Structures are given as structure tokens and as C-alpha cells.
């Protein structure tokens, strides 16, 4: 009898432990005012969390304990406790937060407030305001250099990537890119900074030390008008060998050779694809497809779309638990 009990106990334990091992993806649904939680082991939506109005930027804290989500129309950032998926606190983000980044240590959060031309700086642990940087232009995309010394802020008005020193909060360089720069991403080794231009339809590759554009990636999809190609999200593998660029209403993700900057493939994902995130093992890339209300799963090695998962209305951003 005790053996049965033991076996049963073991089985229960295994059943409980198995899903907990798989990383969870949190997807902000801009129009649904919810966050969908996806189990990356089973690719099923396991929870839907009601959040504030117009959730967009979304990011795990580095310790994996919380998910931060910018709810622009409520002028705040909500903190979701990932142990029970409940909203437990808010951060003083300033007005209409859309997007934010955190430093490598996971201590400081930089928030782009599009309407009042500021970047708000927040101490995540203390949940308090550290200060504002007047960037003087509409901040849109942001990225932090791997060593944490430089904050990149792209601006729709100036069509520039502004380099801001994270210690002095001064702009130290400006690099002109194509129209409506939307997103910025560094290679892990700090050798390149990539900036997507949504209206220009290009990705500028910048040398972060020299502050110069060293290459410009263009996209061409037969049968699609060029204005349907609107690059937004950029995700580069940790080894820097492959990059993925989400092309908005082209419904595709471009696969780019990290060294030669040549487009090697276009993957049809879902309608109006914007943002993406890798699973912690780097095997899969998840994309948010706003108009088809789903998330596509790309097998990174095979470069194939293996799954699409229905989420809430107008999915915007996605973040996956670090492991």
C-alpha cells in the first residue's frame, strides 16, 4: 500500500514539476487590456490576466519574480507577481509610458514617455523615481549597451539615435538614421547597434564606438509594395550570428546573417508583426501579430514557423521568463 502511495506522490510531484520547468511567455494585448500567459513547454495559453488600460511595453525583471507592463492610458507601470499572476504594485512611470528598458543588473528602469519628451528613471527595488532626463524629442525606441554605460533613445521627430551617458544623463552623440526610428538593439559583444526605421523601411547598423552608420539593411519582398514593409522589432542571437527583424504589415520576419547583414529568408508569421522574444535556451523566437491576434513560434535552428497561438486582442509585446 505504501508503495502505491509513494508512486502516486511521485506522479503528482512530477505532474506539478513538469510545467514549472518550462519558461512562461507573457504577452501584452493592447486592445484587450489583458496579458496572456503562454507555457513554452506545451505552447498553450495557461492564464489571462486583466491589467490596466492599453498595455504595451512588457518585460520580466532580471530575477524572474515580476513582469512589468506599461499601461499607457493609466499612466503607470504595473508589476505582476509571477508566482500567482496577480498585480501587486505599480511604478511611478510618468505620463503615457509606452516602452522601457532595464540595465543588466536589473536595478534601474528607463521609461520612454512619448507625450512629455522625457525618459523617466526608476529604482526597481525601491519602486521610486530617480529622476527624469529631458530628451527634448519624442522618445520611441530604447536600448542599453551591454556594459550599461550608454542608453540609446530613438526619436521620431529628429530621425536620430541619441546616445545618452547613463551616469551623467547627457547626450554624448547623435546618429542620423532613416524615417521614424522605432527600435534599437545591441549585439551582445557591443560591436554593433541596430536601429529599425518603420517608415524608411530599413535597418541601420551603427558602430557604437565611432557613432557612424556602417551598413544599411533593405528589404524586398516580391509582390508587396515597399510601404507595406515596416521594420519594428529586432532580436539578435547571443552569438551575434543571426538577427530577426519584424516587418509589421508585411506579415513577415526577416532572417539576417549577423556578419554579412544579408537577408537570408523571410518567414510568414501573422498579421502586423511587431515585437519578439527568445526562449531562454535560444531555441525558439516568439512574435506578436497584432491583427491576427496571435503569437507565432519560430524554430530558430530550422528557421521555420512551427506554431501559432491565439491570444488576446491586438498583441503588442512579449517577454519570456529568464532561466
Amino acid at each position: 500500500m505504501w508503495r502505491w502511495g509513494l508512486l502516486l506522490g511521485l506522479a503528482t510531484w512530477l505532474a506539478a514539476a513538469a510545467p514549472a520547468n518550462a519558461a512562461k511567455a507573457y504577452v501584452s494585448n493592447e486592445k484587450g487590456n489583458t496579458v496572456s500567459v503562454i507555457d513554452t513547454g506545451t505552447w498553450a495559453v495557461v492564464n489571462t490576466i486583466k491589467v490596466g488600460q492599453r498595455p504595451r511595453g512588457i518585460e520580466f525583471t532580471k530575477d524572474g519574480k515580476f513582469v512589468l507592463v506599461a499601461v499607457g492610458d493609466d499612466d503607470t507601470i504595473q508589476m505582476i507577481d509571477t508566482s500567482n499572476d496577480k498585480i501587486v504594485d505599480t511604478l511611478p512611470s510618468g505620463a503615457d509610458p509606452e516602452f522601457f528598458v532595464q540595465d543588466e543588473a536589473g536595478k534601474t528602469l528607463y521609461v520612454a514617455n512619448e507625450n512629455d519628451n522625457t525618459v523617466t528613471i526608476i529604482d526597481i527595488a525601491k519602486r521610486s523615481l530617480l529622476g527624469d532626463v529631458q530628451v527634448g524629442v519624442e522618445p520611441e525606441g530604447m536600448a542599453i549597451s551591454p556594459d550599461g554605460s550608454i542608453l540609446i533613445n530613438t526619436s521620431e521627430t529628429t530621425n536620430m539615435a541619441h546616445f545618452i551617458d547613463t551616469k551623467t544623463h547627457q547626450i554624448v552623440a547623435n546618429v542620423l538614421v532613416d524615417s521614424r526610428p522605432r527600435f534599437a538593439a545591441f549585439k551582445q559583444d557591443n560591436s554593433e547597434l541596430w536601429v529599425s526605421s518603420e517608415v524608411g523601411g530599413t535597418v541601420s547598423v551603427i558602430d557604437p564606438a565611432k557613432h557612424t552608420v556602417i551598413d544599411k539593411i533593405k528589404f524586398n519582398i516580391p509582390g508587396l509594395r515597399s510601404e507595406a514593409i515596416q521594420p519594428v522589432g529586432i532580436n539578435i542571437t547571443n552569438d551575434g550570428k543571426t538577427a530577426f527583424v519584424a516587418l509589421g504589415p508585411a506579415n513577415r520576419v526577416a532572417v539576417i546573417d549577423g556578419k554579412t547583414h544579408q537577408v537570408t529568408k523571410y518567414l510568414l508569421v501573422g498579421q502586423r508583426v511587431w515585437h519578439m522574444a527568445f526562449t531562454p535556451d535560444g531555441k525558439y523566437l516568439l512574435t506578436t501579430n497584432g491583427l491576427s491576434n496571435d503569437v507565432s513560434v519560430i524554430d530558430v535552428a530550422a528557421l521555420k514557423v512551427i506554431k501559432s497561438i491565439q491570444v488576446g486582442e491586438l498583441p503588442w509585446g512579449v517577454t519570456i521568463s529568464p532561466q
Partner: protein
Amino acid sequence: MSKPIRIFLPLVGFVVFALAGTALAADPRYPDWPCAQAKVPEVSVAAVWAGPALDDATGKWKDDAETSALVARLSARRTPIEDAEAQISKYLASKPANKSEAGKELFAGVFETLNEQRSSVMSGLERTMRKQRAAAEKIREDTATLHGLQDAASPDQTKINALADQLGWQTRIFEDRSKVVRFVCDVPNAIDQRLFALSRAIQQGMED
């Protein structure tokens, strides 16, 4: 003032407001487009298809009874999308010898059919918008006439009541139509979504 007048006057305000609202959202290229959603006149093949070039599949699908029957079932909104996807996968699995041709023809059929559905919904919306504009003009005129009757030295109460009643009805029809328009405005998007999902299932079925 008689009772009906008090009821319809706020509604006339609504009519003017409703038209002004649609005018604000308008794209100058499509003056009759009544929706807040942008008008995309046609979906291009490349926006939904990454499979092989269609070549002559575009004309062929109609000649094959099995394909055209399946196209009709897949395109019908009453077929749940999960069922449609299952039917696609089953159909393509039954054509191991010429899966690519079968997939291309099926896609060509679905693409053509749903694009036609989209066009007819969109032209219906624009036709309704033109009717609404004419109705609003009529309501404005009748309101002016009514005010004229009321301001007369010896108001004809029977006439006033009749016109007030008529205005009440006109306004109500206008308002109902506006509600339907707002609802129908979502249909082109819903068709786009269906087309994309079907196209994805066909490409998946061709690769399996």
C-alpha cells in the same frame, strides 16, 4: 411645444455629430468610406502567401468540382476556422502525388472568393454612407421646415405634429443604420483574418 419635438431634437444633434465623426476619420482618397478602420481596397497575394508562385492556378480551381466545393465551404463564415483548417489538412493529405498543385489551386480559390466578399462588403458600406449623407440632409431640411411652422403667427398644430413624427422616424432609421455600419466596419478585418488563417493552413498542409 408638442411632445414629439422634445424627443427628436436631441437626436438631430446626434445625426450631425455622427456624420462629423466619420468625416474626421476619412481618407481623402475614399470620401464615402464610413469606417474608423483604414480602407485597404485589396489584399495582395504576397501579404498572405509565401508558397510557390500561383501561375495558372488562379483560373483552374473553378474547373474542378471538388476544389470549388471545398473553397466554398472554407470561405463561408459559418464554418468554424478550426474545422476549416482540419478540412484543408485532410484534403491535402489525400493528394500526396500533386500536393503542391492542389494547395496552390485551393489557395487561389480562397483568395479570390474572400477578396470578392471583401469588395462587396466595402462597396455596401460606401453605398450606405452615401444614403446616410442624403438622409442627414433631409433631416436638416425638415427640421428647418418644422421651425418655420412653429414660428408662424398661427401655428398649424396638426402639420407640426405630423412633421415631428416623421422626423422622429427618419432620425431613428438614421441612428439604426449608423449602428449597423459600425458593426459591419469590422467585417473586412474579419475576412482578412480568415484569409490569413486559411492561407497559413494550406501552406502548412503542403509542407506536411
